[in-house]
């Protein structure tokens, strides 16, 4: 980054600021290079996250594995383009979001997705839930509710689903979601609110749309 020399930057305080920025950039680049240098470590560290997000988005284990591999392959090929402006996890998630969007929009694959043998159904997800609820009835109710949420999430529009899953499965902040999806923070919030409202009402958790 080149800063224009102005009266402000020429002052001692300005020079200090510029030096601080340069030092910060150098430190960031060194950190970035050292992190990406051990790409096996990057894969081992971020694979579960990327795979999980792909799985909850696509609901197909095979497709999620392929997509996660594709994501890290693209990251490897494009590692020189990573400037370190965002966290590495956000950059990887950005690649994954783009791949999922392309996959979802690929009409030719729709038939195969419907007939896929490795699809993850809501009941299968609910069975994986390990809870500490006091009674079997409460556990069964929680599993049923989870299955509803899972199926309602699948019916959400693509952007709403992506934002919803990034927020509540990957636990990203609104700013991180905005960076990963390329949307503004306000747009992210709108999609998230709509998704939450839909999930709340269709899964039977919210009884009324507006309470008087």
């Amino acid at each position, binding site marked *: 980054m080149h800063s224009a020399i102005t009266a402000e930057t020429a002052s001692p305080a300005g020079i200090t600021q510029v030096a601080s920025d340069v030092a910060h950039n150098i430190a960031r680049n060194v950190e970035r290079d050292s992190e990406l240098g051990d790409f096996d470590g990057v894969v081992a560290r971020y694979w579960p996250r990327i795979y999980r997000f792909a799985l909850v988005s696509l609901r197909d284990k095979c497709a999620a594995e392929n997509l996660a591999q594709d994501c890290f392959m693209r990251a490897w090929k494009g590692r020189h383009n990573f400037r370190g402006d965002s966290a590495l996890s956000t950059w990887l998630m950005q690649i994954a979001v783009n791949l999922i969007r392309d996959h979802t929009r690929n009409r030719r694959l729709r038939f195969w997705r419907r007939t896929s043998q490795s699809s993850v159904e809501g009941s299968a997800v609910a069975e994986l839930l390990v809870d500490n609820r006091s009674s079997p009835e409460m556990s069964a109710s929680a599993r049923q509710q989870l299955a509803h949420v899972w199926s309602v999430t699948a019916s959400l529009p693509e952007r709403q689903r992506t934002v919803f899953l990034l927020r509540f*499965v990957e636990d990203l902040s609104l700013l991180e979601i905005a960076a990963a999806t390329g949307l503004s923070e306000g747009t992210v919030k709108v999609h998230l609110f709509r998704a939450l409202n839909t999930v709340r009402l269709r899964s039977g958790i919210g009884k009324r749309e507006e309470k008087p």
Partner: protein
Amino acid sequence: MNRHLSADEFSALLAGEDFSRGQSAWAAGHAAECKECRAEVARMESALTDLRAAAQGVTASPPRLSRPAKAPTRRWFTAPRLALGGAFAAAIIMIPVYRANHPPPTYGSEAADAVLLQQVDAQLARSIPGSMEPLVALAWSSEETHSRDENSQGKQE
């Protein structure tokens, strides 16, 4: 305000909005006081927590994308290579056996060769083919007989 939470206020609470200001502050205060709204927020939060826990349970398998520490050694004794090697060894063994059972053809002694060559020379030296020789001999003999008869007639005359 004598009302319950709106859809956006529910969403704001669940999304973790900043509750310190304006409408969000009121929504947070109402959710703390209203039993019905608080229960609904709690149910939704519980469902979202379960969703996250279940997703993490689904993806508990280890990553499959990893380079092997050492490149896998390729076996040289694969089936096609073994078959090819066996066929080559069998061919090497069979060559002397075949030669022992099928000796090269012999063409006789030198004397027989010489006789054969003389016969060939004789055939080549002939002015007429061998098959025509009896006919030619017959013609010669009849001609000689005819001339001898003429000579004897002349002498008688």
